[in-house]
């Protein structure tokens, strides 16, 4: 399954190893792991992710299919957690397999940029001050938008 949504923690290294098992024709693999961040000056106790699962699976599945065609990937996979998470824990992992490194790097970056703006997840931070929804960032929209330009 190229898209996996789950509440449970995952082992980033074990996931990468499993992803790499069938790798005929591949010369490059990229794994990106996103972690729950907590700044020392503004510590986050819990980061809770809300998800719309049916839409997330559809959106991410389409993005993977796009990435495979666009960058000539052999395959790609996304694991995304939801529910309550704690600082330092993995939230998301994107893995790409390609004949050459540029395709693997670009495919992974494309998928991460897509996840930030087009996958139906919403982050809420709990701090000592209370709870707050994380606001969408314009720079994430810009990062996503650059893949739509013909340059």
């Amino acid at each position, binding site marked *: 399954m190229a898209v996996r949504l789950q509440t449970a923690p995952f082992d980033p290294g074990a996931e990468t190893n499993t992803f790499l098992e069938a790798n005929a024709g591949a010369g490059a693999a990229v794994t990106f792991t996103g972690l729950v961040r907590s700044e020392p000056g503004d510590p986050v106790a819990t980061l809770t992710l809300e998800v719309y699962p049916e839409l997330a699976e559809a*959106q991410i599945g389409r993005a993977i299919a796009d990435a495979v065609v666009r960058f000539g990937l052999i395959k790609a996979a996304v694991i995304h957690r939801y529910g309550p998470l704690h600082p330092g824990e993995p939230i998301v992992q994107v893995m790409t397999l390609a004949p050459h490194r540029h395709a693997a790097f670009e495919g992974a970056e494309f998928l*991460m940029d897509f*996840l930030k703006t087009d*996958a*139906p*997840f*919403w982050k809420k931070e709990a701090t000592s001050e209370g709870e707050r929804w994380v606001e969408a960032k314009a720079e994430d929209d810009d990062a996503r938008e650059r893949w739509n330009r013909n340059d």
Partner: protein
Amino acid sequence: MKIKYFAWLRERLNRGEEEVSPPPEVVTVADLIQWLRSRDEAADLAMQKPQLIKAALDTEIVPHTAAIANARVIALFPPMTGG
């Protein structure tokens, strides 16, 4: 049709989903948002900036100009913050 709400929109409305039967003149997502706002004060306040509300018809994210007639589930939600 069923409407689902997520994140702060769900919290402000105090409900995650509801069944609604909009009148025939409600054709697009934009019409639906206006109609929902006209029904109750919480919805009016929560969606006073419609440009902040994204919409999905079943498993497709769509612009506010999209026609809602054939959708089984319509989801309304704030900009996404995944990854």
